């Protein structure tokens, strides 16, 4: 089968490799119909996540048709078209019993801090991902969800990570009616966090980024105020000036470890890798939120240490909440939102690229070329057209 293949930082290619097999009675083999490149895949692509082995196939956002199921699978059958949450989880361990599916204790032998994730290095369990024609899906009765018949596949694939992560980011902010919410990052997660903040009753939503076309898109798609951080001096002062000197009620980090905006952080964390990425946005969140406010973090950080201004967080009495999204928990409500027309996630998809051109797809997304917001990879022969959500602005 055709699959994306990692060869080292910034180097990938499409290769033919053996099809996956059932390795456990709870497994299914899924033929992929859509897979996305996620902003967090770029941390792997740039070589920032430890134990990303040469030969890995990335891809934790995908939909597909069930081809084969293991002997213990009872609730999924060949032919079902499913969306597959990026978390691999058992549904029965201590953490799954608390609906913390992103923290499952049964699917990742290599690390205890994170559960299993498709195509996300051996630090997240060593599973191959969905940027391929076929993928092994463990715990097939637990994770995959059959896609409602009337749902667009492009909406469905965004339910596997991007939309639930943006929603959870907003929800972890504990937004109350009328709150001012500042979201750092105008990528797909930041865009969906902004949309979700409105659903939760925010009074004002401000999105921070430095790429003009992304800011233009979020302004139009999510009706937000925007800040280009390269046009302002000090971020904390700027936010305080916008909020009567108090600071935002909620700040949300949708950027993670490759934040631009601070030379020292970028040099230490991204170039020299002496800490788990650049903690620039964590500084901005903690210093821009009001006293007693909440900082919500869904941006991905490396497991090594980070220089974070925890003293300021203590002195300001902040609530810090963070996690990988527990996708399955959010699906019923988010499907309702899509079906009711309150959310239309597929509009963020700007590029539809053949899996054979995966190297170009990564480069376009990583370098923010061609007004790229979100890229969907499709198996050969399935490319219909290039959608132009961003280009149509």
């Amino acid at each position, binding site marked *: 089968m055709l699959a994306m293949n990692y060869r080292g930082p910034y180097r990938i*290619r499409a290769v033919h490799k053996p099809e996956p097999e059932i390795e456990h009675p*709870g497994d299914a083999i899924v033929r992929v119909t859509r897979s996305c490149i996620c902003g967090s895949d770029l941390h792997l692509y740039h070589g920032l996540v430890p134990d990303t082995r040469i030969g890995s196939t990335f891809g934790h956002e995908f939909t597909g048709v069930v081809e084969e199921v293991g002997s213990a699978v009872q609730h999924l059958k060949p032919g079902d078209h499913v969306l597959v949450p990026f978390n691999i989880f058992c549904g029965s361990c201590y953490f799954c019993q*608390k609906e913390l599916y992103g923290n499952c204790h049964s699917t990742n032998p290599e690390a205890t801090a994170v559960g299993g994730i498709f195509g996300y290095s051996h630090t997240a369990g060593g599973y191959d991902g969905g940027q391929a024609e076929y993928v092994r899906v463990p715990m097939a009765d637990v994770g995959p969800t059959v896609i409602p018949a009337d749902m667009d596949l492009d909406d469905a694939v965004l339910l596997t990570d991007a939309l639930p992560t943006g929603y959870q980011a907003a929800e*972890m902010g504990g937004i109350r009616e009328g709150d001012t919410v500042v979201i750092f990052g105008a990528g797909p997660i930041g865009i969906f966090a902004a949309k979700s903040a409105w659903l939760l*009753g925010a009074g004002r939503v401000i999105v921070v980024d430095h790429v003009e076309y992304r800011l233009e898109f979020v302004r139009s798609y999510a009706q937000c105020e925007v800040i280009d951080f390269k046009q302002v001096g000090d971020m904390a002062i700027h936010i305080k000036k916008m909020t009567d000197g108090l600071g935002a009620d909620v700040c949300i980090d949708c950027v993670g470890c490759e934040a631009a905006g601070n030379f020292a952080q970028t040099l230490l964390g991204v170039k020299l890798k002496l800490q788990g990425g650049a903690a620039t946005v964590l500084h901005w969140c903690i210093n821009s939120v009001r006293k007693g406010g909440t900082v919500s973090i869904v941006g991905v950080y*490396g497991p090594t240490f980070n220089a974070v201004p925890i003293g300021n967080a203590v002195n300001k009495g902040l609530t810090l*909440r963070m996690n990988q999204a527990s996708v399955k928990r959010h699906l019923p409500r988010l499907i309702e939102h899509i079906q*009711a027309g309150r959310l239309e996630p597929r509009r963020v998809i700007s590029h539809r690229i053949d899996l054979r051109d995966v190297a170009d797809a990564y480069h376009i997304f990583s370098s923010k070329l*061609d007004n790229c917001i979100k890229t969907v990879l499709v198996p050969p022969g399935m490319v219909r057209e290039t959608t132009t959500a961003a280009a149509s602005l």
Partner: protein
Amino acid sequence: MNMPDPSNTRSPSPSHAHIIGWGADLDPAMRPAYPKERTPPRLPHPVEPPEQQHSHAEVLHSTERPGITPIFGSTLPPSGLSGRLRRLAFRHSENDLRHWLMLLLADRVQMGEGLIEDISRGHVPNIYAEMGGRAELRHNPMGAARKVAIGVAALALVAMALKGRGRTRRRLRG
């Protein structure tokens, strides 16, 4: 654009009326993560603990757990020098910085091993294509030209420096 949302019992202020779905999840009962940890979980059917997956390949595991998990990925077992480094790294806990630094080092070492493996199989990797060179040329031709210019200038500088060193040596010998 200004249609009211029938599921939203709250009336948005005039400034939010144009936002479809504003306040639809103001009621905590509508929030998937409220309360943030729920027991029992809202899975569609009861789930039994998974049986142990059989291992056909070497699987490293964190020292913070007694053994491997019931389910795991097994596609790329450790091998070669990078594999040795990874085994060493897994002697230390996730709490130990050495664990992560050794894994990062192993990743860089394996990149070299991958190149050697490619060449030993008679495959010369097309690094230009692997790094998305075609997309760069198509969507950022000025950037591509700049990179080429910088590369050529750097090569010229290196060549000049080597030539200069050669001339100095000959002069010293002569």
